[in-house]
């Protein structure tokens, strides 16, 4: 069984981000990057499915040179090979164009299953998996929290709103967008890290895929810090100076002490 996991690299969750000079993106200097949150769960589920179904996992990552590091990590965790779609223009922000490039790069691989994360932590479109499915003519499910392969079908449990869930079944090949929480995330072992070095990484140039836009496209005009709508008391300083101020608020404003 051939399984792909679409894996994105994003700034580390703890990074204190600043905007770049012209307000079109963040300032990437001094920012560290890591694998997107829900993609960890997608990778974990891909590895689990592969283990039980004699499968092979291919990591598919689009981004500039720095994403090689995340690819290495995924290979160390047990993925078998990778495709790096080199896209230096990290600011290219149209969701459709990005999905088209990814779909074009995986089209010829004939994957039985393509997993993606539910949503990226930078743009947060939550569209890529769904778009890739439609572009490749495959059925899909989103918000997936459990999977079970039954022959040429896959049964998945989807999260719904308000604490509800739904089971659905799809014919393979299919695309699934994975929601966080479904399984434990694997760690890379020393052996895995050694083995990763020998695993194949295919390099593809995004520009060579011949993706053209039709219809319409979105352009990111500017990024900015949102204006706050609420009156907030900001407390800064060391613990000894802020703690008495918090106590004062708890007593006199929140009235819980």
């Amino acid at each position: 069984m051939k399984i792909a996991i679409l894996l994105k690299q994003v700034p580390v969750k703890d990074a204190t981000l600043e905007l770049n000079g012209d307000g079109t993106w963040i300032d990437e200097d001094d920012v560290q990057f890591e694998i997107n949150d829900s993609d960890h769960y997608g990778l974990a589920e891909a590895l689990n499915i592969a283990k039980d179904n004699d499968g092979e996992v291919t990591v598919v990552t689009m981004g500039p040179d720095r994403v090689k590091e995340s690819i290495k990590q995924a290979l160390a965790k047990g993925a078998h090979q990778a495709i790096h779609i080199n896209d230096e223009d990290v600011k290219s922000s149209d969701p459709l164009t990005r999905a088209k490039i990814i779909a074009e790069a995986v089209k010829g691989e004939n994957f039985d299953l393509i997993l993606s994360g539910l949503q990226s932590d930078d743009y947060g479109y939550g569209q890529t998996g769904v778009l890739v499915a439609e572009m490749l003519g495959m059925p899909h499910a989103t918000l997936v929290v459990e999977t079970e392969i039954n022959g040429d079908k896959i049964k998945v449990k989807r999260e719904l709103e308000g604490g509800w869930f739904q089971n659905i079944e799809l014919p393979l090949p299919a695309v699934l967008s994975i929601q966080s929480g479904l399984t434990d995330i694997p760690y890379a072992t020393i052996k895995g890290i050694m083995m990763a070095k020998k695993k194949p990484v295919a390099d593809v140039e995004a520009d060579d895929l011949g993706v053209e836009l039709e219809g319409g496209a979105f352009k990111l005009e500017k990024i900015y810090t949102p204006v706050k709508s609420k009156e907030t008391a900001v407390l800064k300083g060391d613990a000894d100076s802020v703690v008495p101020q918090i106590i004062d608020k708890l007593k006199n404003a929140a009235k819980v002490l």
Partner: protein
Amino acid sequence: MSQGILVIVEHNNAKVNRISIEAVTGAQKLAAATGQPVYAAVLANDCSAMTTELSSKKLDKIYAVANPELADYTPDGYTVALAQLIERIDPAYVIVGHSYQARDYVAKLALRCGGALMSDCIAMNADGGNLTLTKQVFAGKFNADYSFSGEATCFISLQAAAYNADELESGSASVEDFAVNLNKSDIRTTVLEKFEGTKKDVDLAASDIIVAVGRGLKEEANLEIAEELAKALGGDIGASRPVCDDGWVGADRQVGSSGQTVSPKLYLSLGISGAIQHVVGMKGSKYIVAINKDPHAPIFDIADVAVVGDLFEIVPKLTEAVKAAK
């Protein structure tokens, strides 16, 4: 030229969902700014309850798309049916609420119609004929403005509460049946059972004081410092989703869109960034104190008190001070 704004209305138990009423409200405001008509579409086996509910709103027309294959939502069923309606109306904009259902199919529908979707928007501004869409990026740390170019239909999904349903304009709308060509064979997924998650042991909705922990706590062992603060305050522990996913606390303590909705007298958050899916579950709290080391953390936008600092330095001292004050 494409004309008009189509709102796709979602429903549950024969009632229109609040997020769709918000979407209609947004569409009415966009219509006022652009002079375009607003249509609503309802998909179901039997649309009558929803079309009746909508007929007293200010809409230019309601399309009732009734078909047995639309009794259960499926991405294929909705896409095939709506693509036919959209081809017929040829709207400039299609607007939906950014619900779980919308996440599942609207991008696909947009592509099928030759258009494109901007998802999870918090504002639409039409100035001088140009539409600017605003959405949160980097998990709410920043906002981004997008423009759309091209002749195709522009699809927009709106974040919950982006528009205020109380500002919905009333009126009277006519209903038109729209017959679609939709067969069982168009639908590739099989819908199986629906069920509710495990019952909750803790009812955070009844708590007066919640100390909520996030991934900033770093590891499970550090939960202790939060529990001591909660004990000193006489409150309960709540958590963000990743903390529940990692099993540090039970899933019943999760606050947010896929967890509980709470409104305590005091919500004290420790190391929670304030992603929208968390905030929707706690923004109704009477008083919000947030401790976070990142001055840009979006939780500060809704906090009454924003404490910029390291929770590991502040919390133990705060616990002692609370004990002393009691």
